[in-house]
């Protein structure tokens, strides 16, 4: 099993991105996803900047570099940016919208199916495999049981399994909207957002009126309030044949996160329980920690 670093879901400054990746390239990561997947207005780094960064990182490590595409593709301008991304000519692309799948399939290019593509069973997997899917990152709400059943279904259909990558750490990307909730929280119109999400390197917490942390607001994206952590579920991930565990970047402390996963992947005992949530993986509400729900 190997480790991947998902695309940064938050909006950071150019310097923060560059510092982050110069730190991450020293880490034992096997795949690094680059690019903006949440909001097309975030342009601290352009497509050329991302490609330039990928070339630099390539010289410093053997990690595979993948370019992630936008998730909610609405405007004609967003579609043309997505076309340029698919035509980058260098890097494998992670598709997060069926529009990207179509563009890549027309170009006969293999792709990673990101967690925002709705693939929930073996029959759907077969369809995307026919379009060029090489690696499957299941939707974050999928349980281990659903992933396993989908792959078994694929076996029954006589189709070879793709690589499997599981979202194993970070705030879960849960929803996408036309509305920017960060701008709304700051009473700004979306058209004049002033890139206010830049002021929240890990999004804004959304709590119930009783103070329970529910969600994290990140521009047009709504994420889990809790940080998902599947490190205690390593034995099941291994039994399932996961090829990659995806660690989703946070503003601080990612090197320690990578190290702790690396150690478990290389023989250290997985902890019995960790803080955060892993409910989805156990087939219960995503916000729960299976150990608390009495499932382990």
């Amino acid at each position, binding site marked *: 099993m190997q480790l991947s670093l998902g695309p940064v879901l938050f909006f950071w400054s150019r310097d923060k991105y560059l510092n982050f990746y110069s730190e991450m390239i020293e880490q034992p990561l096997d795949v690094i996803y680059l690019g903006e997947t949440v909001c097309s207005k975030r342009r601290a780094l352009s497509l050329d900047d991302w490609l330039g960064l990928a070339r630099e990182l390539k010289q410093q490590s053997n990690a595979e570099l993948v370019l992630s595409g936008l998730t909610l593709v609405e405007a004609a301008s967003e579609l043309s940016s997505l076309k340029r991304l698919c035509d980058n000519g260098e890097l494998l692309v992670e598709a997060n919208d069926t529009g990207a799948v*179509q563009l890549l399939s027309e170009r006969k290019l293999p792709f990673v199916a990101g967690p925002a593509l709705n693939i929930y069973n073996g029959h759907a997997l077969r369809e995307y495999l026919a379009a060029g899917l090489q690696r499957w990152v299941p939707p974050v709400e999928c349980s281990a049981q659903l992933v396993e059943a989908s792959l078994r279904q694929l076996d029954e259909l006589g189709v070879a399994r793709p690589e499997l990558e599981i979202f194993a750490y970070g705030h879960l990307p849960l929803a996408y909207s036309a509305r920017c909730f960060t701008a709304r929280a700051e009473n700004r119109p*979306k058209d004049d957002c002033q890139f206010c999400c830049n002021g929240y390197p890990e999004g804004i917490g959304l709590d119930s*009126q009783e103070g329970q942390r529910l969600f994290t607001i990140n521009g047009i994206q709504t994420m889990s309030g809790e940080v998902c952590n599947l490190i205690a579920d390593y034995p099941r991930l291994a039994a399932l044949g996961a090829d990659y565990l995806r660690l989703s970047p946070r503003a601080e402390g990612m090197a320690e996160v990578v190290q702790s996963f690396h150690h478990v992947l290389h023989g250290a005992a997985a902890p019995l329980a960790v803080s955060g949530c892993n409910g*989805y993986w156990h087939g219960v509400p*995503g916000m729960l920690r299976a150990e608390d729900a009495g499932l382990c």
Partner: protein
Amino acid sequence: MQLVCPAGSLPALKAAVRQGADAVYVGFRDDTNARHFAGLNLDEKQLQQGLELIRKEGRHLYVAVNTYAQPDGWARWQRAVDHAAALGVDALIAADPGVLAYAAQHHPDLNLHLSVQGSATNAQSLAFYQSRYNIKRAVLPRVLSLTQVKQVAATSPVPVEVFAFGSLCIMAEGRCHLSSYLTGESPNLCGVCSPAKAVRWEETPEGLTSRLNGVLIDRYQADEPAGYPTLCKGRFLVNGQRFHALEEPTSLNTLDLIPQLSAIGVTAVKIEGRQRSPAYVEQVVRVWRAALDSYQRAPQQYCVEPQWNSVLAGLSEGSQTTLGAYHRAWQ
């Protein structure tokens, strides 16, 4: 433009037909459709009766099999598609590429419409479904502005249908796991959002509270109207402020946009609400039929009658309506 109306029961279907729906959409009584609510949807006998009426009146019947199939339940989705084909419905509304592929292969004569749950918001995405499954129409998610609908419609390989009235999803349909994060059940997999069985109402000294799987969604003072605790419409704390951080309880109403939607070339307008009562369907369809007919008769003179809006406002969440994402400022 065609008027496509919801029916969660036979009386609602009859009401829709009576008031002039061009097409009525329904679901089977299981988790193969995105309104899998207790007591809702039509059984076999009701479907037959509904279909007879639809045929007699020269309208269309669509069946939604628009959740994503769970691998262990695949046979249910297969059966639902076969059932719709056997009934001879005018279109099957689906989202899952596995389901669409099955329908296209086994029932090549069955018209396929891409469900809003397919979350296709651009022409390339629509091309994905059209080139592979020969979809004949697509329902667009309620996240596009009018300009974006125009761009998509102009470049789409298939005619498009848009939502005209009803509950408003603030998130892109098919791209929202908020419900399963709190309750374990989601629209994509279970056909429900903020499921009723997870809802608890309680009178407390601080006011009436609504909870979803134990999570406080909202708290109401005596003079405040209380709405169903759809989780994106609760009041939450963000940066120390208590407000509708995601969306107010409000309904989409696009009567004002009929001329623009028609000019864009939108082929059908859809009324949301299979979970609503026959009386609701009756009133909403009546207003929309009147509005579309009025536009048809004299496009240049079209204007929204105040009475139409007052009827619709009375049926709307929080008695409020909005143009939603179609109006850029709302975003």
